[in-house]
């Protein structure tokens, strides 16, 4: 005869089960449930593929299981917000990817990421990782992240358009202006770009500032160690105005979405773009990849520098799996793991590049070994200052502000930022 469950006994059993479940859960956790890590990144689905394969391989060879969560296409404007929400919402990843400079700095200043000084010392990472890129993930003399990508920004151009206008790769800034003039005369748009969102015009301006101010002064300006209201900065803004007025930048550049520029170069709508090594992956899909080449924008200064940035991995302090996360970092910075990831611009020293697949990026790796770089300005500056900076640049390009007024406005913006930080 089946045993009947009355209402009272059902409630008693349910209540006991509910009360006991956390205890059972805790016991099972202590009993050795496998630790699993969650890595948060912003890779596209295509970029995430080799990472997922490498992480699966890591697990298969006895490492911790790692789940890769990605937010494709979120970019620097949205990803930090998502990361912040996850950390503050109690759903922190165990490891996350982030850009360096002032995009990572708020998380460091807020005490949300692990200090890795001891880990660096114990693992000898200073000898393995590119120093400049480690600096971009450091704060107040301490290291908080492990750089994965060492990205350099240069000019990528079409050799066929240069040949058509009878110009060669410029070796000085004056020669670059001459190239621009010849291209315009030949009916070709010299430089492609887009001012929507601000950051792409900054790519041009940071180069012009390096030209006008030189490396030492440029570095001082980026950290606010000297006044922006000075002749060299006025000259840099005057050059930007010239690039706009002479149509070396596209007409109406401020209204163009910068994500179009790669397609426009591939489609023959212009001769040059400021871009990084990732562009080579797009060239591979072009009708004739052989027409594309790259060069370091000439500055006329010694040392010759170009802009760059880093992307790296950090461990949030909220993770309960710090040791496992460190073990994963140690695995990821191994040259053979980097090779497996197929990076064309690894921040790990001595990682061989597939020169058949990425011949131009390989050249950039050599240049990075010989030349220093300075941090791109939208990462050198905190976002609110970068916004003010772009506002000034757009006013100069529109003729609403003279180069002299722009230099003074930048000094005011820098002063305001220093006030906020105080």
């Amino acid at each position, binding site marked *: 005869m089946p045993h009947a469950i009355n209402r009272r006994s059902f409630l008693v059993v349910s209540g006991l089960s509910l009360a006991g479940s956390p205890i059972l859960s805790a016991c099972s956790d202590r009993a050795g449930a496998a630790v699993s890590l969650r890595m948060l990144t912003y890779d596209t689905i295509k970029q995430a593929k080799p990472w997922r394969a490498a992480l699966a391989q890591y697990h298969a060879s006895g490492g911790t299981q790692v789940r890769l969560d990605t937010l494709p296409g979120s970019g620097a404007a949205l990803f930090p917000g998502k990361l912040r929400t996850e*950390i503050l919402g109690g759903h922190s990843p165990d490891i996350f990817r982030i850009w360096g400079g002032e995009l990572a700095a708020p998380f460091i200043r807020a005490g*949300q990421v692990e200090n890795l000084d001891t880990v660096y010392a114990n693992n000898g990472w200073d000898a393995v990782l590119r120093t400049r890129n480690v600096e971009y993930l450091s704060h107040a003399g301490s290291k908080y992240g492990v750089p994965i990508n060492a990205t350099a920004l240069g000019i990528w151009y079409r050799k066929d358009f240069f040949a058509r206008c009878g110009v060669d790769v410029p070796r000085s800034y004056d020669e670059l202006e001459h190239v621009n003039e010849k291209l315009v005369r030949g009916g070709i748009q010299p430089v492609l770009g887009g*001012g929507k969102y601000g950051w792409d015009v900054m790519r041009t301006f940071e180069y012009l500032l390096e030209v006008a101010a030189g490396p030492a002064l440029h570095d001082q300006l980026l950290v606010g160690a000297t006044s922006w209201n000075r002749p060299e900065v006025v000259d840099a803004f005057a050059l930007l105005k010239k690039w706009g007025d002479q149509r070396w930048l596209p*007409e*109406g550049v401020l*209204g*163009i979405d910068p994500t179009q520029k790669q397609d426009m170069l591939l489609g023959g709508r212009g001769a040059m773009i400021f871009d990084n090594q990732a562009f080579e992956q797009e060239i591979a899909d072009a009708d004739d990849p052989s027409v594309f080449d790259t060069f370091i924008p000439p500055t006329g200064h010694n040392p010759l520098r170009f802009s760059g940035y880093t992307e790296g991995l950090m461990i949030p302090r909220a993770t309960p799996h710090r040791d496992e996360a460190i073990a994963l970092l140690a695995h990821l910075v191994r040259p053979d793991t980097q090779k497996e990831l197929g990076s064309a611009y690894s921040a790990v020293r001595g990682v061989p590049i597939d020169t058949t697949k990425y011949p131009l990026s390989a050249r950039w790796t050599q240049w990075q070994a010989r030349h220093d770089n300075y941090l791109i300005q939208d990462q050198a500056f905190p976002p609110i200052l970068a*916004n003010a900076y*772009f506002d000034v640049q757009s006013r100069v390009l*529109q003729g609403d502000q003279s180069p002299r007024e722009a230099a003074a406005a930048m000094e005011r913006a820098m002063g305001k930022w220093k006030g906020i930080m105080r």
Partner: protein
Amino acid sequence: MTAVQNAPEVRTHPPRPKRKGNIGSSSSPWLFAAPGLLVYAAFLVYPALRSAWLSLTSWDGISATKSFVGLENYRAMLGDPVVHTAVLNNLLWIVVTIAVPMVVGLLLAVSLDSSVFARPLLRTVFYAPAVLPLVSVGTIWTWLYDPTNGAVNEALRDIGLGAFAQSWFGDSTTAVWAAMVPACWVRSGFPLLLYLAALQNIPRELYESAQVDGASAWQRFRRITLPSLRSTHYIVAALSVIEAVKVFDLVYAMTNGGPGNSTQVLGTWMFFNVFQFNQAGYGAAIAVLATAVTLAIGIPYVWKQTKD
């Protein structure tokens, strides 16, 4: 006097005594409303109060601690030129995106009201933009305005007005106006529907007698149609003002607040401060300002609706 009136009162059951602690009739409406109120309090009232509290703090949005700064964020807003630009843009947005959709919606409604034949089809056609997600609308119009490949410039060139072709979002003087065109396009469908419904409630006899009295079409519109739509004007205007103060999606998708900060509105400047500039306290103060403006307009509207 009827037998019914004289009949003694018959009570079959004695009145039920009130039980101690019984849920009386005065509290039962609250019980019925409780689930909704709970959700409202959790997802609207609490976040709003929390934002108001945050607006009195200096918080980067990441740190565990916040420091109380009183009204400092509100004082800073007074000296922030971008807030001034944003307020002006919001005011401009309110005027244009109320006036244009109201006039267009009214004209379309009057036209459709008299044309019974194609009314369902045309009503759907004109209302269709209103159901599109605003980010999609922004993306579509960004492409239409593209300075090199956009259909707007192409159309201008095709009709011999190539001199007007330009980078619509690349110039501070045109960007905010260009951004308002899609807003008007999207918002004309809503007044159309309300006006159309209201027009159908105006008694036809009024028009017939006016016609018999020799009133022209314009006189009938001015003396009968417009006064009869007074309450609809009010609804459309109040809801449009609230929409215009809240505007975010279109500006964010089309101009991202640029060039520079020339097209910032309170919604986008609040977003940038909270989510990109790590100034959550200051961003919350901007949000409180926008909410206060919305409430100042919304409360009289709700009060009038309740009264009606």
